[in-house]
Structure formats: structure tokens, C-alpha cells
């Protein structure tokens, strides 16, 4: 009896060492295994709206442009290119890679596989303010995206500028201020004057859009939130301040937001206020 027990115990130890332990190791480290499959630097590519791809031959096919801070590189993907293209800004090298090498991320971006096979196609040239690409299978330019002009709703901007959408998602407004501003009667209007080319505007637009989203919660589709926000995109210099809207309100700095209560201009808000838009709105409305 004792020898049977000893043999069973020996088998159990062997089983534990050869099967259970490795299985536990593998099961316990899925992230490590997954991270090892992703490239060390060619990762964290996110959609960008700052630049756009202009192919040499016009096409209806869509090309999405991505950028990675870590890689300092752009990627062109989509129906408009036969294979994804990697454009490295510092070395100016243009390379292609297989679509299956792009590993999706939870945030809508992607990483490249650690063992991605890159095929060098050539180098790009700088042509004025654009990147000119003329390599095998790809001809066109990367240019600064056209400025968003005129009146727009927030959802337009979130679509046009993925950077705004990411900033909006990351921003945490002060809950008490948002709660104080909630309502569904549409009495208050905020007109935000900005430029998609304006670096300072870019730092706060996501925050304003997030606050707008929070204020709309709880309102029915046919209702308007307490604070209705409209956005007006201004052109780049030298036409910025001669734009009719800018001239009408004597704007001289961006971003500027005009707060109206009962059709009366209550306050002008600037970048330093719009860094915390919900606090600025609540303060402006309570201090009337």
C-alpha cells in the first residue's frame, strides 16, 4: 500500500512539473507573449487628420493616414493603396509591408508585427510644404490637411480630426461643473472660433468636444442641451482676421469662444479658460 502511494505521489510530481507548471506559465503571461510579437518601435500608429494623402491620379478609393510618435512615421492604408506603405520622416525612406503585419489595437490604431517584412521602395522628397512620394506603385503627396472652414457641429470635427476625438476621450471634466450645466432647454449658446491649423486650439478642442458630449447626455433626440455649442473654423494667415466672422466680432486670438445667454453676449473665453471648459462655463454663467 505504501509503495503504491509513493508511486502515485511520484507520478503527481512529474505531472505537475511537466504539464501543469508550463501550462500555468503560458496561461499566466498572455500579454507578455503578445507584446513580444509586436515591433519595438513601429507601433502605436493612430489615425491622423493633420495631413492628407493626395494621389497623383485621382481616385474614389479611400486611403487612411496613420502616424506614430514612437516611430516618427506615417502609414498609408486602405483601398487607395495596393499594400500598406510606411513613410519614415527622419530617414525619408518609403517602405511597403503586408497588410497582415498590422496588429489592431483596442484604441483603433495598430502595431506592426515584430517580424514584419519591410520592402524598401525608395525615398520621398520635400517639395515646398509637402512630402512628394514617387516610388514603385505609389505616386502622390502628403500635404497638410485643408483647414476646416465655416460653421460645423462637434460630430463633424470628431470625424475630421481623430486627434480631437482621442483628446476628448482622454479628458476627464469636473463632474460637479458638468452637472451644474446640464439641462435640455437649449438656452445658452457657445460659439467657438478656432483653426484646425492652430496649435493652441488643438490642445483644447478635444476638451470642449468632450464637455459638449457630456452635456448632451440625458437629453432626448428632439431636445437641445442647456448649452449648445457651434464651431467656426477660420482660415490660415493672412486671411484669418479678415474672415467676415472674425472681423464682425473683432477676433484677434484663437481660440476664442463667445458665450451668449438670451441672445446677449455674456463673456469671451480664451485658451486659458477653455483648458477647463466646464469650469469656465459654470464660472461665467454664475458670475453674470
Amino acid at each position: 500500500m505504501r509503495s503504491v502511494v509513493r508511486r502515485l505521489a511520484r507520478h503527481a510530481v512529474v505531472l505537475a512539473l511537466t504539464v501543469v507548471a508550463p501550462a500555468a506559465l503560458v496561461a499566466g503571461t498572455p500579454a507578455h507573449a503578445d507584446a513580444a510579437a509586436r515591433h519595438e518601435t513601429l507601433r502605436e500608429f493612430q489615425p491622423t487628420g493633420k495631413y492628407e494623402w493626395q494621389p497623383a491620379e485621382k481616385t474614389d478609393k479611400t486611403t487612411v493616414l496613420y502616424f506614430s510618435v514612437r516611430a516618427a512615421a506615417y502609414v498609408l492604408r486602405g483601398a487607395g493603396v495596393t499594400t500598406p506603405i510606411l513613410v519614415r520622416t527622419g530617414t525619408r525612406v518609403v517602405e511597403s509591408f503586408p497588410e497582415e503585419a498590422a496588429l489592431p489595437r483596442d484604441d483603433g490604431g495598430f502595431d506592426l508585427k515584430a517580424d514584419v517584412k519591410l520592402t524598401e521602395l525608395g525615398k520621398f522628397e520635400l517639395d515646398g510644404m509637402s512630402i512628394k512620394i514617387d516610388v514603385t506603385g505609389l505616386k502622390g503627396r502628403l500635404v497638410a490637411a485643408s483647414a476646416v472652414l465655416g460653421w460645423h457641429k462637434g460630430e463633424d470635427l470628431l470625424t475630421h480630426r481623430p486627434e480631437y476625438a482621442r483628446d476628448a476621450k482622454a479628458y476627464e471634466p469636473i463632474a460637479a461643473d458638468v452637472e451644474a450645466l446640464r439641462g435640455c432647454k437649449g438656452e445658452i449658446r457657445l460659439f467657438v472660433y478656432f483653426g484646425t491649423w492652430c496649435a493652441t486650439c488643438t490642445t483644447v478642442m478635444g476638451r470642449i468636444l468632450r464637455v459638449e458630449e457630456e452635456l448632451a447626455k440625458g437629453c432626448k433626440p428632439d431636445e437641445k442641451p442647456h448649452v449648445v455649442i457651434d464651431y467656426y473654423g477660420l482660415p490660415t494667415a493672412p486671411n484669418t482676421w479678415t474672415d467676415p466672422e472674425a472681423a464682425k466680432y473683432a477676433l484677434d486670438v484663437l481660440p476664442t469662444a463667445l458665450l451668449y445667454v438670451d441672445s446677449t453676449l455674456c463673456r469671451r473665453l480664451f485658451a486659458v479658460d477653455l483648458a477647463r471648459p466646464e469650469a469656465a462655463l459654470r464660472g461665467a454663467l454664475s458670475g453674470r
Partner: protein
Amino acid sequence: MPLADLPYAPSRRPGRWRRGLAIVGAVVLGGIFLLAAWSKLLDPVAFADVIRDEGLDIVLSATTVAQLAIGLEVGLGLALLLGVRTRTVLAITTALVAFFLFLTGRAFVYDQMGWKRASASCGCFGHLLERSPTEAFVQDLLLLVPALVATWLAPSPGAPAPMRRILGALVATAGAVVFAVAAPNLPLDDLATRLWPGQKVSEICTAAEQKCLRDALPLLAEGRHVVVLADLDDPKFLAAVPELNLYAANAKGPRLWVVTTASADAVAMFGFTAGAGFTIQPTEKAIVRPLYRRLPRSFHVVDGVVTATWDGLPPLRSLSASPPG
């Protein structure tokens, strides 16, 4: 010798009031000169930039003119404070005051007429005292001229001034020139600029138009940030781009901002050519120039207050280990 022929015969000797006023005038003028010289000594490179901007580097280089001008201010200031009010000293002092008034007066006229703006730091005090062109001209007119006139009321007696005082002024002049040569390499940035630990970001503004750093970087008011003031053409900064990219991508420490006076177009080009993935914020020169003697210069901000400054790039590795922004 007849009494009447003495240089200061009783009938020709300045009265007590005139002598008193002359001494007060000399002390005020001497004090202003020394204060102005000190502000320029801390950042002679900025003063040389002003000289260059004003087109005063005709015969000698702007750096040489700056060093000599600083020496002259120190020498004259000390001489006046030590009571050396000989006609030679007063003549040179008058010429210097006239020159300052010419500079500030010209800037005032340009400003009033809407012509090309002269440097906002022209005149006496460099970047330590930001004055609008109108302020600079009016203050110099009201301060310097009465003091100068008072000083002329009672020049020093005709007898040679004490040698010790003259030697003292000359030694101080030589010392000032030597210090001006060495100053750029001394750790004086916190003293010489308008950026130091404890400084509030909300107070970093231009004097003339009240444009502030917070208008360009509104998010500095909250959280932790590290700001690098950079010249995009600087090879030292260019070499640091990969490290800055990695820091920005890891997003572990305070949020990184690079501030430059380059245009938006130049920033875009830099992004393409240098592979910069971090945020570069074009900002007006008038806001940024008073914050550094040499670029790059960096600083750490917590909730709108500068907590540390660094000559050069910030210590990115240790910042990566600190709490994020």
C-alpha cells in the same frame, strides 16, 4: 595767488544746495547705471542681440560693443557714486544718457507710427525689466535727464580727483568687461532671465501687449509638464529628437512640450525632416526670448508653477520615472 583767481573762489563756489543736488543727481544716475549694467552683465548675449537689432554693430562686432558698453556703464556709475564728477566724466555720462534717449525715443516713435518694432528691451535694463517702448522712453526721460542736470550743477572741484577713486572705477570697469566675457558660461540663467523656480506661468507675459505663455500653452495651469525651449536649427536639439520621441511615446512622466519661435510652416517642415513626433508649439518671440540666455533651456511645471529649470535638455530618464502629467 589772488583769492579771486582760485578755481573755486568763494564768489564762484557752488552753493550748498547746488552741491547737494549735484550729489543726489550723481548718486541717482550712478545707481541707475550700475543697475542697468548688472542686468546686462547677466545676459550680455541678449544685449548683443539688441545692439545687432538696433544696427549699432557698424565698426565693432555686437559682442564687443556690448562688452565695452557694459564696462563703460559700470565705470561711469561707480565714478559718479564715488564723487568723481569731473567734466570729462560728466561729458561721457551726458553722451551715454543722450544715446539711451535716442534708442528709446526711436523705439517710441516707431511704436507710435506703427513702423517696425524696435526691441522691447532697448534702453537700460535688458530683459530683467520688460518695458513697452512708451514706458522706456518716458521713464528714461523723467529719470535720467533731471539726474544729469542736477549732476552738472556742481562738478567736482578743479583739483584732480582722488586717485584711489579713479583707480577703483577703472578696476571695476575692467572687472565688468571680464565678467561680461565669462557670463554666458556661468550658471546665471535663473538670475538673468524671467524664468526661475517658483515663477508662475501666468506671470510670464510681455510688457507691451500682455501676451502670455499660458495663452500658447493653456494646459500648463494643471498637472505636470516639462517644457523645452528650443531652436529647431540647433544641431544639439536635432540630435536629441529620437530621445524626445521616445519620451513622448512612452508617456510616463510629465507631458512634454517643445516651444519654439519658428513659424508654423517651419515646425511642419521640422516634423518631416527631423522625424519629430512630439508636440512643438510655435510661440511669439517676445514671450519666449526673456526666458533664456542660450537654447535649449528646459523647465518643469506643476499646476502652473515652475518647480525646476535646466540649462539644456531636461533629465528625461528621471522624469520618466516621476508621475505623469
